């Protein structure tokens, strides 16, 4: 009889062990379900930085190719440089899983719009916080594409509070390039340019007198009504030099593809020889 009672205790212990086993198995199963559903393919990618780098390096490559090929006149050197750049980019980006491709375009004459294209932003700020201008040239003004007096291309200089300090309107007056200059209150004069070249800092336009001692912004207004080249150089308020020059633009199409699940395709007009400070 006593022996039978001890057997009952063993059954009780066995029941406890089986119970604990069930709990352990359930917890394990739960963990397996959890783990198998954790996002194994979470794709937190910073592809936008790669894209930004591509835009920046491609712009700089075009600038170097342009300057190294006598302002694009030697197309063999220009194209060879860009082909070489494209090959090197394909190789270096392939290491991080990107397929890079660049479609080269021919050099185009530019409008005075923000991106240089006819449909670009008409009214735009060329440079801000200028302290002094050493050189401000317009060249190759095309009389046939220049707007008449009602569609004139305007260069405006505003001080930091936004009031006009100096402005010049360039327009086609019966086949002649006419420049009408004024300061904040009065008209300075009307001039003509037979060659399509205008040196804004010349004394007759009184650009330097009217902007001396000011912090100013140079704006182009109605840029799509005129084609030509420009160059502005000088000093900013912070003491740094600036230099912006546009002779040509090139419409560059670049493509980035990563593992087939990401693709960026964009077309960017690049100002040559130097579109940024």
């Amino acid at each position, binding site marked *: 009889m006593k022996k039978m009672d001890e057997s009952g205790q063993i059954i009780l212990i066995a029941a406890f062990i089986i119970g604990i086993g069930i709990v352990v198995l359930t917890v394990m199963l739960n963990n397996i379900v959890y783990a198998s559903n954790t*996002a194994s393919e979470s*794709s937190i990618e*910073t592809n936008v930085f790669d894209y930004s780098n591509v835009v920046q390096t491609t712009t700089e490559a075009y600038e170097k190719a342009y300057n190294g090929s006598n302002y694009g006149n030697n197309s063999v050197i220009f194209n060879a440089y860009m082909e070489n750049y494209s090959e090197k980019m394909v190789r270096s980006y392939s290491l991080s899983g990107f397929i890079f491709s660049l479609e080269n375009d021919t050099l185009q004459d530019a409008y005075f719009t*923000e991106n240089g294209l006819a449909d670009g932003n008409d009214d735009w700020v060329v440079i801000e916080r200028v302290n002094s201008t050493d050189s401000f040239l317009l060249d190759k003004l095309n009389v046939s594409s220049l707007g008449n007096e009602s569609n004139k291309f305007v260069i405006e200089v505003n001080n930091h509070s936004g009031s006009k300090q100096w402005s010049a309107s360039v327009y086609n007056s019966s086949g002649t390039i006419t420049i009408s200059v004024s300061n904040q209150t009065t008209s300075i004069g009307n001039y003509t340019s037979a060659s399509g070249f205008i040196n804004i800092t010349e004394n007759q336009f009184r650009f330097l007198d009217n902007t001396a001692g000011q912090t100013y912004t140079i704006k182009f207004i109605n840029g799509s009504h005129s084609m030509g080249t420009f160059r502005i150089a000088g000093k900013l308020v912070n003491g740094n030099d600036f230099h912006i020059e546009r002779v040509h633009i090139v419409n560059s199409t670049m493509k980035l593809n990563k593992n*087939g699940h*990401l*693709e960026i395709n964009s077309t960017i*007009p690049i100002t040559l020889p130097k579109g940024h400070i």
Partner: protein
Amino acid sequence: MIRQLREDERAVSISVGFILTLSITIITMVVVISSFYTMMDRAEQTVMRDEFEIHGNDMALQISNIDTAVQITRNSGGEIGSFYFILPLPDEIAGQQYSVELSNQTNEIIFESHGKYATRVKVPYTVHETEVESVRLYSGSNEFILHYDPASNMIKID
């Protein structure tokens, strides 16, 4: 008298004892199993919400990436021709299908499974240059493609 009762086994029935033991065992088993099921169900919803948050954050990041790429391109005076990203969203999460909703009213990505509030996860996104098209999609049909439409300046998901 007491001794007589202690030794009196006339009211003891083996059948009744067996039925009582069986009933108690069944009730105990049912209670234990159902509590395990409830625990598993809660764990499933927790898993879903965690998963939804991971995928939602991934989508929000990609939306921001597209928006930033558009901004970079516009600052350079150019235009994005196309930008697409195939989202690696699974057909099922924790064995259940789910829906993804993009809302440009609240600027949120809303994940939900079978309309259960307990599984709903809202992840906010931010855009500056573009708009996001409001849409509701269901898992399991096709792959989800996040893309930019230059004509309407909208980020869409198909």
